[in-house]
C-alpha cells in the first residue's frame, strides 16, 4: 500500500466514525429528559404556543425524519438553526472556534516543549535527583484539575499581582460570543509603545548575534559593536511603526486568532495584549498536559539512549547534545507524535474547563451554555465540530506518522 492509498483508506474510515458519533449524539440528546421548547419559554407559555413552536422547530416530526433532515443539511454544510435564538449554528460556531483554536495551539506548544525538554533532561540523568523531581512534576501535573490550576494562577497573577487582566479576551460585561474586542481601545501612551518596542529591539539584537556566531565573530568588542545598530534600528523603527498603527485602534479580524491578526496588522502593542490574555489560560492547559509528554519522552528516550547507534555516535566523538537531540530524540519521536494526536482530544476537553475558568469565549463555553437550554442543534453542532477537529488532527498525525515510518503503510 502506498502513501496515497493509505491516506484514502484513512479518510474513508473517518466517515463512518463521524456518522456514528452524530447518530449517538442525536439519539442521546433527544432520549434523555429535557425539552428545549419548555426551556425557551421558561415554562410560562400556553400549550398551543409551545405546539406551534415545536412545529416551527420541526420537533413534531418523527425522529428518523428529523435525523435525515439534519444529516441532509449537514452534507450541504448547514448546521441548522439554534432552538434558542434561531440564529444559524454554523455562524455561531465559526465565531467561537478561533478562540478555542488559539488556546489549543498555544497550550499544545507549551505542553510539547516543556514535555520534551524536561523528559530528555530526566532521561539523561536517569535515577538522579533531577530525574526524580522531573518525574514527580510530571505525575503531579497530571493529577491537577485544570480549572484548579487556572484558579490558582488567576488568584496569584491576576488578583494579587495584577499582571494580567482577570476577564480575558473579552470584558465581563460584553456578549461573550460576539467577539467584540477589548483590544479596540487605543493603546497607552507613547512611553508604553516605546517600552514594548524595546523588546523588538532585543529580538533584532539576538538575531544579529546568532548570525555573527555562525560566522565565528567574537562577542567582545566586534560582535557587540556590529549588532548595536541592529538593536537601535529595530527599536526605533518599530516604535514609530507601532505608534502609527496603534492610533488606528481597531483590530481587524481576519483569522479570528488575535495574535495572528495583530501581527498581520503589524501592531506590536495589540500583539502583546493578545499574548497577555492568552498567557495564563494556555500556560494552565499546557502545564497540565505536559505531564503525559514528560513521562512518554522519558521512557522512550531511556530506551533509545541505550541503542547501539547512539553509542556508535558517541564513540565517533559527536557532541552530547547532537547525540541526544539528533540521534536519540529523532527516533523516540514517533510515539510522541502519536500521543500528540491522542492528547488533542484531552486538550479540547481541558479547553472547556479552561474556557470556563478564564471566561474565554470559545467553543467549549458555547457548548456548556447551550446544554442548559437543551438547544439540540447547537449541542449537536458543537459536538460534531469537536469530533471533526479531532478526526482531522488524528488524520494529519497518522499521515505524518506514515510518512516518517514506512513500516506503517505495509
Amino acid at each position, binding site marked *: 500500500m502506498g502513501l496515497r492509498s493509505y491516506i484514502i483508506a484513512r479518510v474513508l474510515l473517518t466517515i463512518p466514525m463521524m456518522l456514528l458519533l452524530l447518530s449517538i449524539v442525536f439519539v442521546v440528546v433527544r432520549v434523555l429528559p429535557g425539552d428545549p421548547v419548555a426551556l425557551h419559554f421558561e415554562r410560562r407559555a400556553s400549550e398551543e404556543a409551545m405546539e406551534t413552536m415545536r412545529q416551527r422547530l420541526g420537533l413534531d416530526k418523527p425522529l428518523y425524519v428529523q435525523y435525515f433532515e439534519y444529516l441532509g443539511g449537514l452534507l450541504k454544510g448547514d448546521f441548522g438553526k439554534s432552538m434558542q435564538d434561531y440564529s444559524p449554528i454554523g455562524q455561531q460556531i465559526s465565531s467561537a472556534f478561533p478562540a478555542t483554536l488559539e488556546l489549543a495551539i498555544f497550550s499544545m506548544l507549551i505542553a510539547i516543549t516543556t514535555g520534551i525538554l524536561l523528559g530528555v533532561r530526566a532521561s539523561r540523568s536517569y535515577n538522579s535527583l533531577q530525574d526524580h523531581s522531573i518525574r514527580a512534576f510530571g505525575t503531579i501535573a497530571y493529577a491537577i484539575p485544570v480549572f484548579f490550576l487556572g484558579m490558582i494562577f488567576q488568584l496569584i497573577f491576576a488578583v494579587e499581582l495584577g499582571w494580567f487582566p482577570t476577564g480575558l479576551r473579552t470584558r465581563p460585561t460584553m456578549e461573550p460570543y460576539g467577539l467584540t474586542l477589548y483590544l479596540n481601545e487605543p493603546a497607552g501612551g507613547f512611553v508604553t509603545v516605546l517600552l514594548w518596542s524595546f523588546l523588538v529591539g532585543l529580538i533584532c539584537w539576538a538575531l544579529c548575534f546568532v548570525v555573527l556566531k555562525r560566522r565565528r565573530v567574537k562577542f567582545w568588542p566586534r560582535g557587540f559593536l556590529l549588532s548595536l545598530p541592529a538593536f537601535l534600528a529595530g527599536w526605533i523603527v518599530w516604535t514609530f511603526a507601532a505608534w502609527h498603527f496603534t492610533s488606528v485602534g481597531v483590530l481587524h479580524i481576519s483569522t479570528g486568532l488575535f495574535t495572528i491578526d495583530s501581527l498581520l496588522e503589524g501592531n506590536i502593542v495589540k500583539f502583546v495584549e493578545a499574548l497577555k490574555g492568552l498567557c495564563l489560560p494556555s500556560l494552565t492547559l499546557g502545564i497540565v498536559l505536559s505531564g503525559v509528554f514528560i513521562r512518554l519522552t522519558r521512557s522512550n528516550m531511556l530506551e533509545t539512549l541505550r541503542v547501539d547507534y547512539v553509542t556508535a555516535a558517541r564513540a565517533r566523538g559527536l557532541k552530547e547534545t547532537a547525540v541526544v537531540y539528533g540521534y536519540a530524540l529523532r527516533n523516540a519521536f514517533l510515539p510522541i507524535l502519536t500521543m500528540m494526536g491522542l492528547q488533542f482530544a484531552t486538550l479540547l476537553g481541558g479547553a472547556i474547563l479552561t474556557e470556563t475558568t478564564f471566561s474565554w469565549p470559545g467553543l467549549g463555553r458555547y457548548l456548556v451554555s447551550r446544554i442548559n437550554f437543551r438547544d439540540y442543534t447547537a449541542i449537536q453542532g*458543537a459536538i460534531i465540530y469537536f469530533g471533526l477537529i479531532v478526526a482531522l488532527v488524528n488524520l494529519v498525525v497518522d499521515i505524518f506518522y506514515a510518512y516518517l515510518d514506512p513500516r506503517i503503510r505495509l
Partner: protein
Amino acid sequence: MRKLETKRTFLTSFLSGLTSFTKRVRGVFANFLRNLASLRKRGSAGWMTLIGSVIVSSIVIMTLISPWVAPSDPTAAPPVIDNPLRAPPSWDFPMGTNKLGQDMLSRVLCGGAVMLQVAVLSVFFCFLIGVPIGLFASYTGGMLDKVCSLVMDSFYAFPGLVLAIAIAAMMGRGVVNMALAIAVVYIPSYFRVVRSQVLTIKELPYTEAAQAAGAKGRTILLRYILPNVVPSIVVVATVNFADAILTAAGLTFIGLGVGIDVPDWGWDLTKGFELLPSGAWWVITFPGIMIILLALGFTLIGEGLSELLNPRLEQ
C-alpha cells in the same frame, strides 16, 4: 470437652463462625500489609505503589471517620450557624470559612465521599460493560469485532469530557448518573486493553492446547484468557480512578455536580471560584489540594503497578 462439642446451638456456631471469619479477615489484612511493606524492596515502582496506597487509604479512612471527627456540621446554613463569613484561616477555623460561614475544615474532612463514590461506581460500570464486550468481541472476531472496534475507537478519539458533559447534563444530578456519564467515556480504554491482550493470548500455545483438547469457547474465555487479562485491567482501572476523579471534579465545576447539601470538594472549588476576585484563597486551596492528592495517589498506584507487572525498563 464433649459437652462443648455436643452443644452446638445456632448461637455458638454463629459465634465460632464469626471468630474464624474475623481471624481470616485479620489474616488477609495482615498479609496485605506485609505485601505492602515488602513493596519497599521493589525499587522506585514499589515505592510509588506504596506511597500511592498510603495516600489513598488515608483519604478513604479520613472520609469514613469524618462524621465523628469533623468539628462542626459541614452543611449547616446561616440561620443555624453564626460564623464569620469568608474568614481567613485562624485558630477557630484552621482552614477559614466560606461564603456561608461554614467551617472549611469540616467540609474538607467530609468532602471526599462524593468523589470516592463516583469514582468507584464509574470504574465498576466500566468494568461491567467494557470487559465482557472486549472479551467476547475480540474472541469471536469477524464482523462483531470490527464493528465494536470501530464504535470504541470513535469514542476513544473523541474528547471525553465533551461527551461526559452532554450525558451528565441530560441525565440530571446524582451520584449514579454522574458515574454513568464518566463510565461512557472510559469504557473504550478497557475495551482496547482487553482486546489487545485477548488477541495475543488467543494465539498462545496453552490456549491452542485447550482448544485441541476440545474445551468449549466459554471455558477457554473464562478460565484461560480472563485470568491473564486481569492484571492489565487492574492497571487500567487504577489509572482510571484518577481520571474519573478529575472528570467528576470537572463536571461539578461546570455545574453538573451532585448537589448543594452534600459536602463535596468539587462543589467547594466551584463556589470558591465565585469568590476569586475577593482573593479568598483558602476556600479553593484546601479542597483543591485534596483532589490533587486523591488523583495523585491513584496515579502513583497505577504507574507503580504497571511497572511492577510489566518490568520493561528494569535493567
